[in-house]
Each structure stands twice: as structure tokens, then as C-alpha cells.
């Protein structure tokens, strides 16, 4: 697992380094007193050169890592929590735009806590109190424009 992750990360660094290198070359040069001086591409170009050995190092480190390090991914409720949480989080943002902050946050909090096996009534209490606290502090005290959604519900 760690072995593959290291190799994959190394490859990403190599691709990133190459793409930053080529993109930086396309930036215009700057001129000062008739002399060419480093333009907007200079610093990213320098960084891309640094990232390249970083990628190579990760790949070599990955190849040297034994398969057993970090163990195999055992798919259980815990590991499944990560994609479930991310999916809920990504659904939460458009939901906030549609339903408004209050309702979306309550639903998000409730669903996530039930997924994490918080007893129903405790989850209800925490979801309601957290949502109300944020709406009051951020919305009322600091006057942040929290999304109201199509329902316009309520601040």
C-alpha cells in the first residue's frame, strides 16, 4: 500500500515538475535597463528543477519499500468512512447553495454522526446546537452572508 502510494506520488511529482517547467518557459521574459532579468517564469522554473529529484527520490524510496510496510488495505467500516465523509462533504457544498446553510449543515452533521455511530438523539442535539451556534456567531455577530438557498431559510 505505502509502496504503491510512494511510487504514485513520485510519478505525480515528475509530471508536475515537467508541466511546470514547460509552462514556465512560455511566460514572457522581463527586461531591466536593456538587460533580460528573471520574469514571472523564473521562480516556478527553479522550483520545477527542485521537484524533479524529489519525484525520482520518491519512486526509488517506493521501489525499496517492502510490500509488507503499512500492511494491506483492509476494507472495513473505518476505511470506508474516508470516502463516505468526502462524498458527503462534496455533496454538502451544492446542498448549501440549494437548501441554505442552516438546513444543509444540520443534514450534513446528522448524516455524518449517524454514519460514525453517534446515537440518534445525541446526534440530533449536537447537529442542532452546532448549526445554531454557527448561525448565531457567524451570521448574527459577524454578519457573514451565509447561503440562504432557494428556500431562503432562515437566519
Amino acid at each position, binding site marked *: 500500500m505505502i509502496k504503491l502510494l510512494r511510487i504514485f506520488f513520485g510519478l505525480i511529482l515528475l509530471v508536475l515538475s515537467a508541466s511546470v517547467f514547460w509552462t514556465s518557459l512560455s511566460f514572457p521574459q522581463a527586461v531591466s535597463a536593456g538587460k533580460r532579468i528573471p520574469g514571472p517564469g523564473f*521562480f516556478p522554473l527553479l522550483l520545477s528543477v527542485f521537484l524533479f529529484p524529489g519525484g525520482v*527520490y*520518491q519512486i526509488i524510496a517506493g521501489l525499496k519499500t517492502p510490500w509488507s510496510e503499512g500492511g494491506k488495505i483492509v476494507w472495513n467500516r*473505518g*476505511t470506508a468512512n474516508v470516502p463516505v465523509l*468526502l462524498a458527503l462533504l462534496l455533496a454538502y457544498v451544492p446542498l448549501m447553495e440549494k437548501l441554505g446553510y442552516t438546513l444543509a449543515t444540520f443534514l450534513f452533521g446528522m448524516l455524518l454522526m449517524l454514519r*460514525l455511530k453517534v446515537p440518534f438523539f445525541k446526534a440530533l442535539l449536537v447537529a442542532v446546537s452546532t448549526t445554531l451556534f454557527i448561525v448565531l456567531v457567524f451570521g448574527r455577530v459577524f454578519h457573514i*452572508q451565509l447561503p440562504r438557498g432557494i428556500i431562503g431559510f432562515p437566519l
Partner: protein
Amino acid sequence: MLSEVLAVFRPGILVPWLLSMAFGVLVGGTPGLTATMGVALIIPITYYMEPLAGMAMILGVSFTSIFTGDIPATLLRIPGTPASGAAVLDGYELTKQGRGMEALLLDLFCSAIGGFIGILLLIVVAPPLARFALRFTNFQYFWLGLFGLSMSAVLSAGKPFNGVVSAALGLLIATVGIDITTGMPRFTGGNMELMSGVGFIPAMVGLFGLSEVLKNVSNPALLKESSITVSGKASLLGALRLIRRNKWTVIKSSVLGTCVGALPGAGADIAAWVAYGVEKKTAKNPDEFGKGAIRGVIAPTSANNAALGGTWIPALVFGVPGDSITAIVLGAMLMYGLRPGPLIFQENLSLVHGIFAVGLISQLFLIPVGLVGIKVFGSILRLPRNMVMVIVLVFSVIGSFAIRNSFFDIYIMVAFGVVGYLFEFLEIPLPPMILALILGPMIEDNLRVGLIKTHGGFGAFIFDPICFPLILCILFVFFGGPLLRYFKKEGNGPKAE
């Protein structure tokens, strides 16, 4: 000066300050939540306040959470924050001997005294250092920024090369947006939201907040309930007597902690370990350490809070963060429209005095707040982590959104959270990336402005009475350790034969 001290007692500053200290108790006392994360979560709230109130909140959270991080370290053998790692060793041993309360009271007073000494040294050292820093040129600032970054990359947990990768990625992310010199967009992909760069707050909340939540939810064992009651009985006077008996350890560790904290990249966690190591090495009975030695509690707990004062020295004087907390502070200062660096001592002297006053008074507040923290800690520990993580997540989302009222920033937070979570597996440290995000523009601007001044010549960047030692320092940071080990090995070789 007196009016600036009195100004910190205005309700507009005092109330959020005390509330932030209560929040610090929660953050530090809950294993898995770090002081850095606490500061990151509080920044969006401070955005809507006057700068001094914001600074008071940041100082309040950081000092309190570093202390309360020692509570689960002492009682459960789980450091509440990384800075409490060294406090585990003897603190937990004392708890096992039924002296947990004694260790915590000792810890509380040492934290307050350490913090006080740290801030006092900041007050004494910072102004003259700032006058000296005013003479710094672009070249010198460039190397100073790079020095801070290299210290962070090497001193962070994990392999130094991984720290360099983390820093390089952070610097690269910092280049996203419109180039200030030419007005040209870089790496934005035509996205208007990226024109002003990658939001620092969402990135930081993602790296420290969401990644921690992901780590916790992926481990069902961590989500299980755990509770403990504060063990043993101890008196305040007894703790004070112990401190008086070990006053030199308190003072030595506090000064050492401040000095370590002042090194860019080395924060409270390293300071605590260094102080513990020095105390053990210089003790008459080093064998007692790790078995419940009083000095094993005093040294790290004095040093970790003292280091916080130390980290503010490079942050205020040079605009180079001492650790990840001051990296966030610098981001916040820029957000308030302030310019951290030597000029702040001329342009915003009253704010600097206010920060000093808040820092000193926070240590006095820390004692009652800490006592309450110890008392209520039993109930905090009983809060199941699955509930705490959801609350942290909801706050991470609103914190990322609130800065610019941007949904895009929430996606940025999620992306950085996933990166932070994966970096944990790859043993790639996160602080260098955060430091690079803050220092990136400073390093690049000084490099380019310097090159404009020299018409592209690199000579002035190297052959300068300040640049050259800085370059040597950077080289020593990377190669000093291996070289010293090599020479030590060479020196031992013939003897062994």
C-alpha cells in the same frame, strides 16, 4: 505604554480573549486536535475584529492549548498536542503512581512561568533586533526566508528530503495567481477564483483540520469513547514549593525553550524535547527520568510554553515564522492589512506593545483557566471523538467559506485535507508546506527585486557580510548532521581498532 496595557482590558478585546482561552482548553485537551489547528479554526472569527483582539485570541488559544495538551499527555499517555510529546514520559509515570494531580499543577505553574519568561525575552530582544533588521536588503531577506524554510524542512518529523519536497510544493502553490511584478496570471487555468492565489486559510484548515478528521474517522478504535478522572490529590502550595526547589530547572528550560522557539522552523515540540534532553543529561540521577522524575515534568512543560514567546521573535522582527502557529499568525496579520517585519515596530508600535501586554497577562489568566481546564477535563474526555470530529469538520467548512464568502475555498480546503491525509502515510511533514505558502511571495519578490537591482547579477546575493553566513547556515542545516556524524565516526574509528 500604560495606556496600551490598559487598552487590552476593553470588553472588545477581553471577552474574545477569555473565550479563546476557554476554546484553547477544549482544543488542547482533546487528543487529535492540535494548537495549530485551534489557531487555524479561530482565524476566520478574528477577521471581523480589530487586529489586537484577533492577536489576543490567537495568543490565548495557543498558550492555553499548549498547556492543556499536557493534560491528556499526563493522564492518558496521549499528547493533546505535539508539543506535549515530552511531557508524556514522566507525567504519565507520576499518574500511574497516583500523583497525576500533582504533575498537572506543576505543569500549569511551569507553563505560566515559562510563557512569562518567553514573552519577557521577546520584549527585550525584539525591538533592538528590529532596528538591526531595518538595514536588511532584498538579498539578505531572500536568504533569511530560505533559511527559515530549510530549518522547517529539516527539523520537521520524517526524512529531511521529504521536508524539502513539502516546502517546494508549498512554494509552487504560492506562485499561483497574478504575478505582482508583471500582472500576468500564473497556473490559474483561467479560473477567476485563483487569480488572487490559493487561499491561505482554506489551505491551512484543510491541511491541519480535515486531514486530522480523516485520520480519526478511518480508525474506528480512535472513535471509541474513553474517559478518565483526574487522579490523586495535590495542593497549589505544594506545587509552588516544588517549583521553588527546582527554580533553576524552570528558568534554564524556559530560556532554552525561548531560544529554540526563536529558530525559524523549530517550535514548541522541539523545544520541549531539547529541554528534557538537556535536563536529563545534566541531572545528578538521569536514571530517574522516565520513571516519574519531577524535573522530567518541569523541563518540557516550561520549555514548550516559553517557546511560543520565542517563535514570535523572528515572526515580528523579520516576518519569518518561528513555527506553524506563527506562520498562521503572519497570514492573519497580512489579512488585517499589517506588514509583519521590522517596520511594524515603527508603523504599528501600539499593536506590538498590545501583543506584549496580552502575552504577559495571558500567563496570569492561564492559571485560573488552566485550573478550570483540569477540573472540567474529565467531562471533555468523555465527549466521544466521533461527535468532536463532526463539529471540527463543520467549523472547518464555515472557516474556509467565511473569509471570502466563496464555495471554491471549501473545495480548496477539501483538496488540501486529502493531500494532508495522504502526506501522513508518505511521512511528508505538513509545516514546511504551510511555511512555504507564507514565505513564498517574500522569497520570490526579494529574489526578483534583488536581481532587478543587480541587472541579473547573482554576485551580491552571495558575497555579502550577512548573506554569506546565512548561506553557510543553510548548508549546515542540510549537511551539518551527516558531516558531524561522519567526523565522529572517523574519530571513533582508530580507538575502536
